[in-house]
């Protein structure tokens, strides 16, 4: 049963991502991407990572995608009268599509040839308690560094997003 659900969710994720990257309207792209992220969250749950699945929904689909939508609507990027300026012609897609298909085919061939991955992923479940112990005991230093990184990102976003005239007065950029 879980096997069938895995393939269905994988197909949903691929189709939603495909629709997302071909939309002209960024709002539609973000909505399709949220769809794909939900499918991925369920895949994480199937693969025994319930906490990661919850955070995928909360952080990715909840916070990051809302941030995208917020910026799109703040800058009025959804195409109105200048709709066709964003869509690239099909000639521009051709080289990268060929490249991606070639590289993807090589990867699939390698995965098929190497028998190491042929064993099944076992039915396994990581409890949030074990996860917390691993995160805060073995990776305590990394957690601290990541918290610093988030602080720096907040400061950097604040600096970059400041109004233009203040920046010129300081001689920046």
């Amino acid at each position, binding site marked *: 049963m879980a096997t069938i659900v895995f393939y269905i969710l994988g197909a949903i994720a691929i189709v939603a991502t495909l629709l997302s990257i071909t939309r002209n309207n960024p709002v539609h792209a973000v909505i399709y*991407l949220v769809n794909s992220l939900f499918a991925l969250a369920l895949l994480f749950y199937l693969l025994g990572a319930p906490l990661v699945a919850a955070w995928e929904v909360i952080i990715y689909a909840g916070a990051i995608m809302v941030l995208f939508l917020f910026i799109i609507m703040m800058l009025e990027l959804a195409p109105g009268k200048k709709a066709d300026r964003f869509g690239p012609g099909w000639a521009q897609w051709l080289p990268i599509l060929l490249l991606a298909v070639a590289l993807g085919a090589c990867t699939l061939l390698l995965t098929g040839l190497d028998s190491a991955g042929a064993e099944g992923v*076992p039915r396994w479940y990581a409890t949030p308690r074990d*996860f917390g112990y691993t995160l805060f005991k073995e990776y305590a230093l990394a957690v601290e560094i990541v918290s610093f990184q988030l602080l720096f990102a907040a400061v950097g976003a604040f600096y970059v997003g400041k109004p233009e005239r203040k920046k010129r007065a300081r001689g920046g950029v």
Partner: protein
Amino acid sequence: MIVPLGHVLILSTILFFLGLVCVLARRNLIMILIGVEIMLNAVGLALVGASSFWQQLDGQVFVIFLMAMTSAEVSISLAMVVYLQRRKGTVDVRAFDEMRG
């Protein structure tokens, strides 16, 4: 067992290349960022699959770090999108192909 590990990796590869196509072919800054998101998610899927395959928690911990890194990256790059839009009045990357100074 649910599925072979190879199938998880194949799914992750397909999603990764879809994101790569989006990054390289689109001309809209927002769409490029969306492509980066797709690629990071594909890597997260591979990490969770491997974590489940070897029954070790390290892969899932890395996914959490990946999420933190993504939030930092998205906040800064969206601030830069706002800055560039303010500067040139567009988010088309073709408008940013010159240097000054």
